[in-house]
């Protein structure tokens, strides 16, 4: 039993003496543990707390399981009676907001969204799906508005700023008096944006807009989460075919809370997986470095160990002092890293808020931070213990003689009389062969960091350089403009006129309606000829050709247990038809709950179906915004809606691009830092270990530069091998990894563009960086003098 004040004090003395002796190594290890703990704690905080933070908000605001929204006139006695007496509804509350399709300025761009305009004063009295302010709010004045927090975070708005909503025939002007948070209507990911107007403002706007903008919004808690109520209401209202991309304010819509939760927290989940995985890589690198340092320090301090043993220290005490030394470094590095990770959570919160709309406030979480700290300390302690066990086998006399048993050169690799190449090169290769373990260690570390780097470069490339694949992530057709015909429009004539417009490359119908597949209410794309589709989302099988064929989203297929070749029953209202699954598609749209059939296929379900949504493809370089204006000018009366899809995609993808590119850049920066730290560590150790050898070489006439070059070249091959293997793994496995990470989003087979050229360039960059760092670190060789060799 070790007693404090006695033997334990001695252990601390020995440990601190070692720390003092190797300040440079201590600092670099400290930084690595700092980075590992920072990432690990941040990753764990997001993993465990971001979701639960959302759950807490759900609970605090008593958010309902589902909401149903429809134009007020749809909410007739039949619907009311149905809802009032539905056994599946535990409780419900109806409110009466207004809803408008409006364009607003968001981060200097025009943003089109459906806004629910709530009476803030009435909404305060809601018992279900409440809302709250984020930060301070100001006293109201004429035409005041409270906006979702995302408008402050990403939209460029502050309190007292003016806020304009441009409707198709009018304009609403407000002054912002507060920012809000609720579960259903605060994120651009979940359909509607909910704004809150003080009573007087609400009344004024209601008069200005008129009754056609009145909506009925029903919040409900259900016994069983299913789509039965939605289906029944649709049936009641005879809404067989509901074009959701057209004027949503004239239709029926419902959204359940689990879907909202997934949509609002998905990116945080993905990012947390990436951060934890990357933290694990850094921890492993730290452990490898700890082991390397201990093995080296035993060699370097062999005589010191001998002296300690000779004066009566036991092997156990010496081993424990080494374990203590590294555990202390890990402890201090980790504590500061963990503390610093809390300063990153507001930044992470801001990043996630772009998708979640949530202002995530993370206080100190002792449990998670404790777990992160204990994980790191335990494995460091264990690795240190295992690495220093060989001290037990050293007899004092052998250690005092400098550990003659430790060197046993068996073979003279690359004899200088026959080896080809310059002297520094051959000596470098000899050094690599003689230090196999060190070379393998460097190679393994380089494999890990190169893989992370390739992954980061891949993400960065796909989000900033070539965003094609990234923009295909939602799985929707990438056209430049969308126009939706009014029922009375002369479709054929306009279609023909559009086709011959000089800037138009192609025009085709792609509609979207709701159907029921095996009890799941899903959206279905309708197209005459899928060979004309430009965004290929089918990753297995093929698009439908015949009227009895259907493509299911992979995520949906997994849920209902179908695969290519299986049959599914598709129903719309009372009509049911059997379809054969010809392919599986992917896409984050509707969280992977979608499908595709041919025009003939949908006609079997709803014979009166009329295609109305035009996807318009422009020649390269044409401005979709200008074209949409032209369309409005020429055919404004014939279209229910016209959309600049280029702008829409840019805005929609913008937040993902922002998040993913930030994560990519962070991984890149950390990777480079780790490469530098590891090289510093290894090379510095190596120079200390080879001091005698280098002194001899200097004595016989090697210059400092020759020795720097020789040492640096010696580190390059494992670096090159590691970078090559890591990059190859990265190139081949990044998409597999992304597929796993994005599966929940409906991306079953990630197709990120991994450009060998970019990876090669970055790999070459790492190699050059490694060489330059090696040269800079080995510059300390200049301090080794030949004279010191004979005088020491």
């Amino acid at each position: 039993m070790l007693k404090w004040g006695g033997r334990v004090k001695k252990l601390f003395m020995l440990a601190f003496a070692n720390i003092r002796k190797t300040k440079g190594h201590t600092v670099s290890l400290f930084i690595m543990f700092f980075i590992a703990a920072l990432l690990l704690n941040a990753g764990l905080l997001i993993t465990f707390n971001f979701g639960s933070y959302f759950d807490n908000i759900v609970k605090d605001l008593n958010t309902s399981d589902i909401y149903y929204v429809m134009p007020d006139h749809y909410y007739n006695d039949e619907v009311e009676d149905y809802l009032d007496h539905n056994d599946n509804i535990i409780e419900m509350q109806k409110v009466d907001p207004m809803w408008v399709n409006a364009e607003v300025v968001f981060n200097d761009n025009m943003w089109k969204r459906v806004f629910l305009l709530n009476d803030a004063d009435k909404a305060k009295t809601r018992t279900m799906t409440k809302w709250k302010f984020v930060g301070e709010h100001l006293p109201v004045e004429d035409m005041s508005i409270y906006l979702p927090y995302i408008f402050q975070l990403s939209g460029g708005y502050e309190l007292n700023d003016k806020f304009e909503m441009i409707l198709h025939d009018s304009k609403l002007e407000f002054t912002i008096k507060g920012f809000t948070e609720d579960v259903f209507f605060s994120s651009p990911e979940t359909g509607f944006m909910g704004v809150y107007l003080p009573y007087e403002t609400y009344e004024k706007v209601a008069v200005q807009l008129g009754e056609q903008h009145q909506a009925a919004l029903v919040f409900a808690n259900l016994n069983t989460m299913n789509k039965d109520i939605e289906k029944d209401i649709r049936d009641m209202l005879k809404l067989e075919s509901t074009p959701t991309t057209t004027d949503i304010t004239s239709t029926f819509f419902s959204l359940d809370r689990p879907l909202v939760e997934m949509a609002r927290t998905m990116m945080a989940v993905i990012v947390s997986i990436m951060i934890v995985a990357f933290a694990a890589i850094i921890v492993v690198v730290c452990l490898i470095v700890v082991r390397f340092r201990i093995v080296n320090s035993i060699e370097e301090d062999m005589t010191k160990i001998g002296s300690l043993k000779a004066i009566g220290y036991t092997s156990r005490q010496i081993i424990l002092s080494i374990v203590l030394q590294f555990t202390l470094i890990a402890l201090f590095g980790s504590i500061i890293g963990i503390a610093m990770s809390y300063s990153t959570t507001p930044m992470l919160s801001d990043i996630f808020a772009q998708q979640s709309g949530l202002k995530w406030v993370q206080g100190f979480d002792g449990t998670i931070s404790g777990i992160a700290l204990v994980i790191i300390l335990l494995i460091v302690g264990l690795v240190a213990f295992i690495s220093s066990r060989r001290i037990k086998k050293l007899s004092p006399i052998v250690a005092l003689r400098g550990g003659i048993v430790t060197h046993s050169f068996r073979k003279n690799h690359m004899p200088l009389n026959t080896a080809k190449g310059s002297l520094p090169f051959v000596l470098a290769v000899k050094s690599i062969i003689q230090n196999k373990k060190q070379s393998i260690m460097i190679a393994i570390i380089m494999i890990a960091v190169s893989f992370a780097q390739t992954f980061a470069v891949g993400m960065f490339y796909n989000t900033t350089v070539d965003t094609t694949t990234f923009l295909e992530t939602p799985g929707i057709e990438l056209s430049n403009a969308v126009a939706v015909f009014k029922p009375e429009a002369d479709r054929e004539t306009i279609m023909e006129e559009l086709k011959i417009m000089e800037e138009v490359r192609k025009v085709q119908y792609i509609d979207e309606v709701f159907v029921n597949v095996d009890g799941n209410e899903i959206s279905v794309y309708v197209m005459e000829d899928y060979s004309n589709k430009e965004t290929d989302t089918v990753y297995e099988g093929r698009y439908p050709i015949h009227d009895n064929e259907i493509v299911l989203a992979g995520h949906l297929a997994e849920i209902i247990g179908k695969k290519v070749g299986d049959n599914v029953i598709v129903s719309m209202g009372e009509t049911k038809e059997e379809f054969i699954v010809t392919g599986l598609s992917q896409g984050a749209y509707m969280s992977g709950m979608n499908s595709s059939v041919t025009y003939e296929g949908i006609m079997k379900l709803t014979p009166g179906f009329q295609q109305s949504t035009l996807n318009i493809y422009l020649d390269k370089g044409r401005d979709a915004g200008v074209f949409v204006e032209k369309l409005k000018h020429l055919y404004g009366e014939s279209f229910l809606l016209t959309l600049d899809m280029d702008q829409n995609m840019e805005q929609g993808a913008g937040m993902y691009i922002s998040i993913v590119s930030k994560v990519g850049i962070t991984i890149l920066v950390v990777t480079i830092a780790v490469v530098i730290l590891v090289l510093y560590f290894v090379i510095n150790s190596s120079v200390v270990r080879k001091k005698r050898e280098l002194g001899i070489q200097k004595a016989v006439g090697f210059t400092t530069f020759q020795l720097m070059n020789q040492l640096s070249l010696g580190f390059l091959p494992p670096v090159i091998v590691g970078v090559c293997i890591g990059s190859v793994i990265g190139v081949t496995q990044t998409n597999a990894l992304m597929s796993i990470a994005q599966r929940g989003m409906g991306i079953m087979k990630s197709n990120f563009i991994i450009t060998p050229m970019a990876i090669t360039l970055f790999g070459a960059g790492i190699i050059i960086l490694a060489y330059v760092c090696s040269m800079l670190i080995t510059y300390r060789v200049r301090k080794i003098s030949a004279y010191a060799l004979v005088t020491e």
Partner: protein
Amino acid sequence: MSNVILSTNKLCKTFSNGGMQQHVLKNLDIEIYEGDFTVIMGSSGAGKSTLLYALSGMDKPTLGSVRFFDEEIAKQSNDMLAVFRRKNCGFVFQQMFLLDNMSILDNILASGLLVSKDRKSITARAKDLLTQVGLTEVIWRKFPSQLSGGEVQRAAIVRALINQPKVVFADEPTGSLNSAAGKAVLDVLTEANNNGQSMIMVTHDLKSARRGNRILYMRDGVIHGVCDLGKYVSGDKERHDKLQAFLAEMGW
């Protein structure tokens, strides 16, 4: 009279030890001649090794000059001195200082290939020299730790000679060897000197000193006396007596 190969002018070397200045070499003016086997003797702390390393460019003097023929080396940069050493100097240390991780032959070639790019001829010369010092082919491929001290020191002498240096500096080359091994090493050095190789050797061993033709005796950082003995001839009693008398005079 032979050429002056090395000369010093007011050579000083001062060490700072705990704030105390320790003057190890004091205004030394000496000349070393080409082809000589110069032996530097003196008591411990007299400055023998300090002088040897100042002359060889291994260490820089605090003041004064060191000239190698007409070239001033005292003020050269470390890298210039490294190039100077590889081209002009050979070293034999008491601790041998061969590279543990290389075979005997590689140790020699690592030095030789610094100066000559002709791998074949330098290898041939190395093998020739190794044979001359009595190290057989079996030994060439062994590592220093697998050989006796005497064998390692003979290999170190070959390394010192491989680049045909102008001068070989030996610092107590027999200091860690038994008498038989020491004699063998001295025989090799003597043989090299007989072949025209200039030698400067620091020693406090009388048997070693006898091999020199010119003895410099140092005390307190200055040359206290010089004795010209003439070429070494084994068993020359008169020469031996002269050296003993000189050393006695010096208070050795």
